[in-house]
């Protein structure tokens, strides 16, 4: 690329264009203002959000749906600090995001200048990497490196903080054709020996389980995973971050493991003699009390991040590399190994299928005739169909959305799994809809979550981003209330939001340029969803007014063993009737 003279701001925008950015979410302000002048005439679509947190989650939603890097942009000080939550969120869920922030002029850095915040220092503990740029000549290289780092290896957020004077000064623009970083060379192909060892260990197992995590979505390996699972014929569990990586309708699928996982998925992991771990990280919400987790299982741990190997659980075989390479190599290796020695998995499959049949996910209709939240979510999944993208907030509605929607395709389920960010759903759905404009996008949100970030519905209404929002309104911080019911003797300290009285959600939606609907009877649910589905030129918000005391089951209480899973209050599965 030839060199040309321009100011740092133009160099930044030219660099973003060269990096292939087609859309970014942001808000201007003093320190970033020079960049907004070339943005005005750029081919990049800039979506003006109403709060920087919305920009960050929108970038995340866009990235999770498209697999591309999501981009957000904000000014210095409060603009930048408002990005902290979404960037921490993207770090926990390994989402490729690049954040651009303006910084006070370089001479003012360190003087507590107006709107000064050390955002590089603030984001250092969780960002995959970050930059503070004070020389305009460094802008193209920093942008190229940021996109490279965010999107390769284990994806994650990268922040580029640029001093205002670096945006204003003249510089030569030349975008680097390649990126070379001495300290960053992520491994893509695993060692051949580790593949052979993994295949060998699999043939020695009579109770294997595929423990599939979010890495399977990031690596786009659903097709390969399906083939691998079918070659072995072993059961599969998909974690909260992996819902959709393997079809829910597949007979080998036992559902989601973890704190609110199915009895079959949780118990299969507990009783397994081998965990074939693919892009998962032994999170505490999956393992329960770690010392009691899958005590008889050997572990194959395939991950692109070497630091995950052995972090929480010892790995008998570590396979370090891109899951695409790993599974592609494992398929022929396993075929070869199974041709020599094929274990009989029939008794194991009989056991796990008996659990699956005995303990399907379910719920009781509320005795007082009020609307069941699980029923609403189940109908949303059924009526919208398997191509629909769902984004959830955090809490009971998130767990029900993970449980009662059937996911058949990768990148159709978005949620804040690691950080547990209330308020994620609406802005993430907005980013998802921008990334997949021809697909129906539903945000399944709680009344608590919705009140944290609903301002982005204005952005949606004004920018032709017609998302649909189902508020599961139980007028409570429902998951916290559930814990208060179970562990704090029903003392409901500060969880009553009274959101069936205030705000009036349909009116609030209408005020923000959306269509507002309401539903509180089971017999009206289908017609309400169908009405929402028929509106495609405006965002739609449905206030589903549901029973407030519905609880999420099954449940493994925090800090307890997965062996102590409860299917209802004070009700354990009938283990005596199971052959385990």
């Amino acid at each position, binding site marked *: 690329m030839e060199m040309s003279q321009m100011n740092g701001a133009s160099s930044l925008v030219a660099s973003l264009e060269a990096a292939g950015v087609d859309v970014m979410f942001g808000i201007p302000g003093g320190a970033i203002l020079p960049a907004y002048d070339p943005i005005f005439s750029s081919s990049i679509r800039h979506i003006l959000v109403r709060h920087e947190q919305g920009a960050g989650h929108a970038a995340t939603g866009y990235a999770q749906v498209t697999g591309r890097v999501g981009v957000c942009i904000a000014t210095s000080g409060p603009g930048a600090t408002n990005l902290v939550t979404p960037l921490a969120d993207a770090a926990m869920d390994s989402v490729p995001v690049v954040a651009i922030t303006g910084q006070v002029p370089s001479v003012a850095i360190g003087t507590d200048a107006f709107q000064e915040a050390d955002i*590089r*220092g603030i984001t*250092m*503990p969780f960002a*995959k*990497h970050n930059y*503070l740029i004070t020389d305009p000549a460094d802008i193209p290289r920093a942008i190229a490196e940021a996109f490279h*780092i965010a999107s390769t290896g284990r994806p994650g957020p990268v922040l580029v903080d640029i001093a205002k004077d670096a945006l204003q000064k003249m510089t030569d623009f030349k975008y680097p054709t390649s990126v070379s*970083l*001495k*300290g*960053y*060379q*992520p*491994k*893509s*192909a695993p060692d051949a020996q580790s593949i052979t060892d993994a295949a060998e260990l699999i043939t020695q197992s009579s109770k294997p389980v595929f423990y599939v995590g979010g890495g399977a979505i990031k690596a786009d390996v659903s097709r390969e995973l399906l083939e691998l699972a079918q070659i072995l014929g072993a059961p599969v569990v998909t974690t909260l971050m992996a819902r959709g990586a393997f079809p829910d309708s597949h007979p080998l699928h036992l559902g989601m493991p973890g704190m609110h996982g199915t009895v079959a998925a949780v118990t299969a992991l507990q009783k397994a003699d081998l965990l074939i771990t693919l892009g998962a990280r032994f999170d505490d919400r999956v393992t329960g009390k770690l010392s009691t987790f899958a005590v008889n299982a050997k572990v194959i741990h395939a991950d692109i*991040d*070497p*630091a995950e*190997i*052995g*972090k929480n659980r010892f790995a008998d075989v570590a396979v*370090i590399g891109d899951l695409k390479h790993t599974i592609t190599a494992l398929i022929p290796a396993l075929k070869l190994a199974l041709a020599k020695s094929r274990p009989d998995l029939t008794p194991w499959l009989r056991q796990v299928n008996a659990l699956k049949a005995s303990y399907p996910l379910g719920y009781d209709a509320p005795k007082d005739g009020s609307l069941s939240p699980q029923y609403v979510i189940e109908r949303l999944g059924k009526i919208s169909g398997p191509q629909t993208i769902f984004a959830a907030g955090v809490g009971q509605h998130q767990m029900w959305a993970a449980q009662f929607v059937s996911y058949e395709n990768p990148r159709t389920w978005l949620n804040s799994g690691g950080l547990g960010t209330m308020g994620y759903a609406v802005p993430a759905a907005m980013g998802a809809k921008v990334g997949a404009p021809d697909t129906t996008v539903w945000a399944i949100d709680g009344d608590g979550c919705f009140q944290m970030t609903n301002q982005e519905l204005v952005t949606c209404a004004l920018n032709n981003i017609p998302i649909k929002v189902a508020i599961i309104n139980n007028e409570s911080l429902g998951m916290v209330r559930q814990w208060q019911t179970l562990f704090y003797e029903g003392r409901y300290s500060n969880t009553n939001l009274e959101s069936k009285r205030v705000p009036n959600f349909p009116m609030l939606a209408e005020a923000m340029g959306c269509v507002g609907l309401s539903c509180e009877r089971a017999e009206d649910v289908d017609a309400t969803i169908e009405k929402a589905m028929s509106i495609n030129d405006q965002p739609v918000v449905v206030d589903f007014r549901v029973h407030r005391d519905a609880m999420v089951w099954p449940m493994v209480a925090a800090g307890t063993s997965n062996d102590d899973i409860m299917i209802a209050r004070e009700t354990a599965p009938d283990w005596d009737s199971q052959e385990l």
Partner: protein
Amino acid sequence: MAQHTLEVIVENSPGVLARVAGLFSRRAYNIERLSVGPTSDPETSKMDIVVNLEGHALEQVIAQLDKLINVISIQEILPNSAQPVIHDTQPDYTN
């Protein structure tokens, strides 16, 4: 518990000491002793980090340190051995 000395070669860039110190703090590990100095290459610096860790915890610290983009290499210096143990959890780029 035995002390281990890690010789960490880092890029000589602003903030790199904060990144390394912050990593120890965030992952709840202690640094016993730390010294930072130049190398023959002006673009790199050398950190000698003494830690009171072994086994799994030592491996985790090394693996997490290696994830820092500005960390180029990590060697464990053994007192009575001519051969340093080279830790490289990110082998050659094979893409």
